């Protein structure tokens, strides 16, 4: 079971409230990499079924033009999440986001329900991926085992609001309260070869702060950031756009490795730097980012 979408580009994941059809009807015009259709916190308790109804029909009817459709289900401590999964899988979602994930068992419980729904609605086994949101100190501490819990799991995401409450600190805007969690989660995700996503920035009036934070998480190794407003998308994409120099270098690395491999050469130099197969995936990722950002027009 290998889903080709597992390692797709996910620089931006935009939160959208399923309770509001006007929001979910065409968010792709803003060109996020993924959208997260929310059945959880954004939806009023008494509107949960209406939100599911909108979600199902949106997934069935709307061509999201290649944007990944992730559905955030309600927590495993509610009686809502099973029906959320049935509805999302029946609709045709790409992924399920588990809120408040604390253990690998949480992921496996959801995985089981997804597999059941896939069978029920005649979807290929493994077609629905999983991501886990870590929202508590326990969840963050268990990041490694959560990352390793399922073949379907493509990544983990920090959920800053709940996490800071659990730490008993306010969100400062400086990121100091998230330092440990961020570092720990990126390392765990990389160790398990899954992706890692940063939390939302909610102060829309402080775009400078948002930019600063995105630059930090980009340099820490995060694959992308959760966002709450379309105006945040171009900022993230800009920061994740590789420089011209790095694109040229990556292109050379890929081409040289392909050629040298055919000639049976393992180590060689590009622009005076020693290169071997270990650079291949990184260079590929640079080219993929450059393509997604519209700055690469080459033939790779």
């Amino acid at each position, binding site marked *: 079971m290998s889903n080709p979408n597992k390692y797709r580009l996910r620089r931006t994941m935009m939160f959208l409230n399923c309770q509001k059809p006007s929001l979910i*009807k*065409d968010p792709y*015009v*803003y060109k996020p990499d993924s959208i997260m259709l929310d059945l959880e916190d954004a939806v009023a308790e008494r509107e949960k079924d209406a939100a599911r109804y909108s979600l199902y029909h949106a997934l069935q009817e*709307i*061509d999201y033009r290649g944007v990944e459709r992730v559905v955030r289900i309600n927590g495993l401590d509610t009686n809502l999440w099973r029906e959320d999964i049935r509805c999302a899988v029946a609709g045709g979602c790409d992924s399920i986001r588990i809120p408040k994930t604390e253990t690998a068992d949480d992921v496996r419980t959801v995985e089981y329900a997804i597999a059941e729904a896939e069978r029920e609605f005649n979807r290929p086994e493994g077609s629905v991926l999983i991501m886990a949101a870590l929202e508590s100190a326990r969840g963050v501490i268990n990041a490694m085992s959560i990352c390793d819990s399922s073949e379907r799991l493509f990544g983990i995401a920090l959920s800053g609001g709940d996490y800071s409450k659990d730490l008993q600190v306010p969100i400062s805007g400086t990121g100091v309260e998230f330092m440990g969690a961020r570092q720990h989660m990126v390392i765990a995700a990389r160790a398990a070869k899954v992706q890692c996503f940063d939390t939302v920035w909610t102060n*829309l009036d402080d775009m400078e702060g948002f930019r600063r934070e995105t630059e930090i998480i980009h340099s820490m190794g995060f694959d992308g950031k959760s966002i709450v*407003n*379309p*105006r945040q998308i171009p900022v993230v994409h800009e920061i994740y756009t590789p420089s011209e120099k790095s694109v040229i270098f990556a292109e050379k690395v890929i081409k040289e490795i392909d050629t040298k491999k055919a000639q049976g050469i393992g180590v060689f130099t590009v622009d005076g730097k020693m290169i071997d197969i270990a650079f291949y995936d990184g260079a590929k990722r640079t080219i993929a980012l450059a393509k997604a950002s519209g700055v690469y027009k080459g033939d790779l």
Partner: protein
Amino acid sequence: MKNAVGREIPEEIIEITGKEPFQGNYYRDDKPITLHGPTIRPVMNNQKSKLVGSIREALEKCEAHDGMTVSFHHHFREGDLIVNMVMKEISALVPMIEDGTITNIESSGVRGGIGEAISKGKLKGLAIMRSHGGRVRSIATGESHIDIAFIGAPTADDYGNLRGIGGKADCGVLSYAIVDGNHADHCVAITDCLVPYPNFPAHISQTKVDYVCVVDEIGIPSKIATGAAKPTTDQRKLLMAQYCTDVVVNTPWFKDGFSYQTGVGGASIASTQYLADIMRERNIRMGFGVGGLTKAMCKLLEDGMADVMLDVQDFDLDAVKSLKNVNHHRIPAAVYANPLNKGAVVNKLDYVVLASLEVDVHFNCNVVVGSDGMITGAQGGHPDTAQGAKCAIVICPLLQGRIPAICTDVTTVTTPGESIDVVVTDYGVAVNPARPDILKALKEADCVPLRTIEELRDIAYSIVGEPDKVEFEDRIVGIIEARDGTIMDVVRQIKEV
């Protein structure tokens, strides 16, 4: 017969109105016309006072009688108290349409109750909808003869020198009323701020005004010039504004001294702000801006990024205040947009940014009739500026709620496709194939997602489906007049279910 935009104009309408069907933007270029002069009563007697005690007295002195045409300007916008004040001898305006007191309406378009009344066939005669330039043209050529013009004036002296600035109902300019003063047989000024003689420099001169009537209130200030609109946070509008700016700055006319007009909508204002950033970055100055003006445009003048603003209307208080700037000039509507004079300002425009209710695959725009068939908007300067500008850009979201705004055929043609060069939607940008130069520039710049207009329509239809055509009765209730006085389209009575 079919006109140049493919609309069927019934023979009976051509006969009744004596107008020709629309035959293309330059049909009347260089063809001689004769202008109309009013019949006036000179004021030679220096003992005579122009002050009258009431509107009724003014009406009596003007010998108001059945069959007359009266005119009003719209500088007081939503805050206008003049129209109903003058017409209230009987009652409010809408019932007057129903009881036949008002048999015809000629306007740049109508909204609300009046639009509904016309669409439902309650007007005895035909409503004629004209552009701002078209209104001046029809009055100047005598096609619309005004018997009595009522001009609301923020300040006036007792001898009829009128100014658009000052007083309680400050609207900044009287640009649209100047032609009324020049061509009406009788001219009554109505003010709530009488000032000592001479109220100079006058925007409308004492030589045009018969009577001055002082009333308590001519307008509601907060509804005339609102505070500057708060910048929009609607991401869809901002997205379209960004595309629009990308189109402007990547086409050949964006260079030092370029000219520009834009509207009052959220996307237009945001687009002007984005443009200002790029002008600053590239050190490019605007030669002149024109139009109904807003804070965003006047700020360019204030910041020294634009040389001149030409003003026919002020949409917010900042635009009114900006009139103090020596390079902020009032211009009459005739100078702004009359198509049949010796060249209007719109002819010198490089760019205009407009909106539209609907755009069809022929690039025809509809800014007057809603997709439900009801008259709901106004041409304003849309057809004038679109024709005049080298690059006319229309911003229009692909969908207006559940209605596809980009469609096969607009409900009613108000601006012909030959005037429209670029359509900006949230789903991409379409360039009129008649403008390969613009398409080439945008392709080379690779700055916006380019689509054909048919592709945009197909996307719209794929999302909300192709709506059934609006059903109308046979009766024609209004005419959409082209700038030059020919018939662009007709509006029929809506079918009530």
